[in-house]
């Protein structure tokens, strides 16, 4: 069976992130990397493969993004994914989640030879937009069950069972493959690529596809076709440094109490 893992190339959250003049995220003039939350998706895909070592399972890493986005799937190959696909086309730039999910859905099918794979795995959310909507959109577009936001994943045959830490309760969710699975950062530490893995990755297949390869029309995608428009982005003014006091024999507590009182919290 094939497991297609969708990963995103995002600006490094620990570095400066910015917007272009057209209010799209600058993905070119910034340091980018495989989104941290997607590492967990790759990890879970690899663990499923390892736990089912007697079966023929191929883990395919897929990303949609500009030229440098290939680094995201390269990292997945280094972690142990078998093949990589990078969809890149100028017409996709500025796409919202809805359009991105359309491209991903078509690429998922093509990566699997034309039909839906047994398992599509995603992270909980991207670390740039953080919407948490693409996995559900993929399920909707592919007509698959969504078994999402998993903190624990188990598979047996075509059955997938997860634990999901919902807002008001912890739930156990079950589904039958083919399905879309998304995993959280609680699902298990993501492995670092080993030296051996890094060397092996160089020989693994990495294909680059354009929209024409997918048969997706450019008119549905990109900034101008988006179903919502960003009007303005503005940097928040940095917080002005506040007062810092050293605690000496309870002085800290009373100073803090005075501050809270001045702000009417007590």
């Amino acid at each position, binding site marked *: 069976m094939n497991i297609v893992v969708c990963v995103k190339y995002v600006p490094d*959250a*620990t570095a400066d992130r910015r917007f272009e003049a057209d209010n799209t995220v600058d993905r070119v003039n910034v340091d980018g990397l495989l989104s941290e*939350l997607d590492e967990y998706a790759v990890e879970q895909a690899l663990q499923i493969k390892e736990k089912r070592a007697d079966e023929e399972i191929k883990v395919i890493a897929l990303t949609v993004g500009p030229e440098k986005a290939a680094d995201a799937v390269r990292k997945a190959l280094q972690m142990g994914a078998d093949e990589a696909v990078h969809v890149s086309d100028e017409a996709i730039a500025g796409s*919202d*989640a*809805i359009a991105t*999910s359309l491209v991903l859905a078509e690429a998922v099918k093509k990566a699997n030879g034309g039909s839906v794979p047994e398992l599509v795995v995603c992270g909980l959310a991207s670390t*740039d937009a*953080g*919407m948490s*909507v*693409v996995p*559900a*959109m993929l399920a*909707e577009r592919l007509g698959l069950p*969504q078994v*999402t*936001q998993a903190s624990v994943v188990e598979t047996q045959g075509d059955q997938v069972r997860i634990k999901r*830490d*919902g807002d*008001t*309760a*912890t*739930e*156990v*969710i*079950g*589904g*039958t493959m083919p*399905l879309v699975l998304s995993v959280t*950062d609680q699902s298990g530490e993501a492995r670092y690529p080993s030296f051996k893995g890094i060397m092996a990755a160089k020989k693994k297949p990495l294909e680059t596809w354009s929209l024409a390869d997918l048969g997706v029309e450019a008119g549905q995608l990109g900034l101008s076709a988006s*179903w*919502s*428009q*960003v*009007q*303005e*982005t*503005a*940097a*928040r003014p940095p*917080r002005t440094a*506040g007062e*810092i*006091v*050293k*605690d000496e024999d*309870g002085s*800290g*507590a*009373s*100073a*803090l*109490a005075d*501050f*809270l*009182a001045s*702000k009417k*919290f*007590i």
Partner: protein
Amino acid sequence: MSEVLVLVDFVNGAVKKPTFELLTIAKRIGTPSAVFIGAADQVGTVAEAVKAYGAEKVYAIDDTEIKGYLVAPKAEALQQVASGKDVAAILLPSSGENKEIAARLAIKLGSGLITDAVDVDADGTTTQSVFAGGFTATAKVTTGTPIITVKPNSAAPEQSAGAGEVENVAVTISDAAKTAQIVATQPRQATGRPELTEAAIVVSGGRGTGGNFEPVEGLADALGAAVGASRAAVDSGWKPHSFQVGQTGKVVSPQLYVANGISGAIQHRAGMQTSKTIVAVNKDEEAPIFELVDFGVVGDLHTVLPALTEEITKRKG
């Protein structure tokens, strides 16, 4: 006037506060109509609650057939409620589940989607806090019926008498939607404290607590606050993940955030950076958290917090 549909969050026999905030926002845009997907015998309770915050209509959908399955049936139900009506917008409280419902609904309706808005004005323009609170963005849906998920604490709920007229809606859920089964549910233990994302004050503990959250909890109770935890505290097993404030936990924006024994790494800052007032207590005067604070104490939280709690209690009396 056009209707604005608001999905009701109903837990443990009560409508949650963010639903009232959304009804208040809905009133800016059009005529608020609540949508309740739940048990038939709770409809009365829901209607009484939501009409006090402006709901003119309450669309009630019996969830007997729906509740055993994850997300997809609710998206279908919402699509059927919206169908054939003049709907100006569909608002959902931002939560893990609701964002997924909104996501599927957007594709079903061919409508644009904006998530985690912190404000929505009368013409549907949204405000969002993005890049870990580093930027503010305004946006608008330009195709279809705007679907917007709104974060808690985005509006002060305004009481406003609405008709609350109940309309039962029969929906047809496809077999395809009933494919991710909820096999078991373990409700969260009630802490007796406010919910983290809805609270006006949050008091958090991190690595510096050493696993002893008593000073943090004592202060939280003195302030009527919710208790949060840093990722380090959660990873150490001191608090469950539901307490985690941060990029991969909950993002909060309360009136007051008190960070104790938390260094202030970007992972945590992403979860609380937009709080109105930020205070920190930490032994390490170089801790990055002090760059964010309106007031900071360099000291041991195990002495500072109990002393502060005592002082607060004294001042109350």
